């Protein structure tokens, strides 16, 4: 007996112009447990960048759903990903976030593993009176079922029966290219990780990244600061990139951006940003046009919020952020966030990028707190049961078309659906892609 039916949770009737999500998706603990098993532990998940373990024997740790993992570069230079638990008693083997080690020794009974995950020692094995059955067991660290890399972005799946990583990422690869191609040396994480929690469901963050509608409503206090700083033009105030763009200004005319949805739940929300000194990237504007062509260069300057379903968000707007969503409970989410930057950029560009990042993205800044507080206020409202259907996925339904548009064509991007928008359209239909991918991963447990 399956406890939930998909039709009760996601009301997806394109022919009737209806796409609705039930509040239960945000609050139900039983549904949350199923999500952890089937969405996060049952398919491809982003786990980190290859630059987080660059040299032989470098490692970093993290989680796939609730399962601790370690990504280790072995002595031959190959990256591997294991469940970070000793096969002996299940103790988490590696406690540090990152480091370099040829051997990992379990703190509990000293079972020892090399950087390729092979068991190198079981303490006092000869005197252990083990049975032959034990000796026949594999005592190495358990590799994850699937592990793959796309241009330095590492993904893993605890379930083996999943599409290839290339199939999973699909067209989203071209959007990752726009970030990685900013430097011939690729991208790196600026040292300093910022972690915060909020008392609401993980899908609040999932949607918010792609939600153009909220910007002028949630962030007027920040926008006022931007306006003021733009007028002041003094060296003292933090310079702003986003203030120079008009994709979010209500009086902007014409196409200012739009959305694209891709297979497997990846979505892009984008806005036109001029190629100008308002972005730290400007120092590369000519080089990029020469290397990649003007169209791709211009896209590298556009505001782009990309979600790679279900847990990676790459936000290129006021600065450049890599976010990883880690659900803890139906009403609690942990966010791991980094500034992601092209390697080899000038000191001035790096410092400019960092300053804008802190003000906009940090939970100690002037924008994100207004988002996270709204998530929590939404979580309170999710308790309503009599009218379960949210009305937050309906904007843009009649503007959504199959395939791409002229802007997508510029970089040969082939989305499944797209919306071209003026500043006030603020498409919500792209969220449908999240819930269809969610439903696909949950298909086995939903009636």
């Amino acid at each position, binding site marked *: 007996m399956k406890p939930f039916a998909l039709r009760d949770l996601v009301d997806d009737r394109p022919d009737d112009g209806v796409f609705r999500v039930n509040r239960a998706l945000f609050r139900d603990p039983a549904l949350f447990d199923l999500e952890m098993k089937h969405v996060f532990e049952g398919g491809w998940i982003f786990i980190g960048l290859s630059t*987080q373990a660059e040299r032989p024997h470098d490692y*970093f740790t993290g989680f796939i759903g609730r399962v601790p993992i370690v990504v280790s570069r072995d002595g031959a230079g190959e990256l591997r990903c294991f469940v970070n638990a000793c096969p002996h008693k299940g103790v988490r083997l590696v406690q*540090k*976030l*990152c*480091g370099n080690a040829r051997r990992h020794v379990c703190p509990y009974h000293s079972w020892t593993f090399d950087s390729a995950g092979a068991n190198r020692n079981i303490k006092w094995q000869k005197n252990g009176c083990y049975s032959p059955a034990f000796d026949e067991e594999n005592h190495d660290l358990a590799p994850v079922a699937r592990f793959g890399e796309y241009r330095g972005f590492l993904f893993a799946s605890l379930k083996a029966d999943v599409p290839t990583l290339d199939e999973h990422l699909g067209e989203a690869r071209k959007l990752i290219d726009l970030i990685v191609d900013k430097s011939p040396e690729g991208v790196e994480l*600026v*040292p*300093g*990780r*910022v*972690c*915060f*929690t*909020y*008392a609401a469901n993980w899908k609040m963050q999932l949607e918010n990244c792609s939600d153009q509608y909220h910007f002028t409503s*949630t962030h*007027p*206090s*920040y926008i*006022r*600061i931007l306006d*003021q*700083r733009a007028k002041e033009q*003094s060296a*003292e*105030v*933090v310079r702003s990139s986003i203030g120079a763009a008009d994709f979010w200004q209500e009086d902007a005319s014409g196409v200012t951006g739009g959305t694209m949805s891709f297979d497997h739940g990846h979505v892009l929300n984008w806005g036109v940003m001029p190629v100008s000194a308002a972005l730290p990237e400007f120092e590369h504007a000519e080089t990029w046009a020469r290397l990649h062509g003007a169209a791709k260069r211009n896209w590298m300057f556009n505001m782009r919020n990309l979600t790679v379903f279900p847990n990676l968000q790459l936000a290129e707007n006021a600065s450049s952020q890599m976010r990883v969503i880690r659900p803890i409970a139906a009403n609690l989410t*942990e966010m791991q966030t*980094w*500034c992601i930057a092209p390697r080899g950029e000038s*000191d001035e560009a*790096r*410092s400019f990028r*960092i*300053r804008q*990042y*802190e003000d906009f993205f*940090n*939970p*100690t*800044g*002037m924008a*994100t*707190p*207004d988002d*996270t*507080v*709204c998530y*929590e*206020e939404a979580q309170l409202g999710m308790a309503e049961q009599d009218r379960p259907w949210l009305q937050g996925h309906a904007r843009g339904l009649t503007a959504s078309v199959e395939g791409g548009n002229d802007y997508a064509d510029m970089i040969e991007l082939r989305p499944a659906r797209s919306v071209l928008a003026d500043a006030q359209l603020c498409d919500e239909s792209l969220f449908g892609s999240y819930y269809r991918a969610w439903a696909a991963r949950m298909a086995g447990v939903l009636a």
Partner: protein
Amino acid sequence: MIALGQVEAAALLYREGLLLDRMDFDAWLDLYTPDCVFWMPAWRDDGVQTVDPDRELSLIFYRGRRNLEDRVQRIRSGFSVASVVMPRVAHMIGNVLAEPVDEGTTRVDSSFIVNVHDVRTNRSHAYFGRYEHDLVLHEGDWKIARKVIRLMNDVVPTMLDIYGV
């Protein structure tokens, strides 16, 4: 040599805490020099704090009081939902150690606990860590030229603003 003594240095830190507790932001801003540095470093994955705010990330970093004024303006604007129902805070500062650096500059190390009660959600949280204040004689008054906030529990529940550390 003009130096600020232990007692006077501690008093300045206590006053700063009191002004934040009272949300008396104008008087708080007035404790800082116009070219002050206000810095809360982030933590790196290798377990040390970031040291170069121009190449590494901070939780908060400003050069110039003008940017702190922006923070205060946002809090007071009425347009920040995170600042509509203001949390209540109480700063506790201890282990104050003042050392004169040079003529007119005193370096002060201290420990802090800031208890924050989020009225909106009825949740309380304590932020704790260490402060480093560089106090300078500025136009006849001792002011804060540099404040470093070394936040130990840096996983931020929902939000953290300037009055919470």
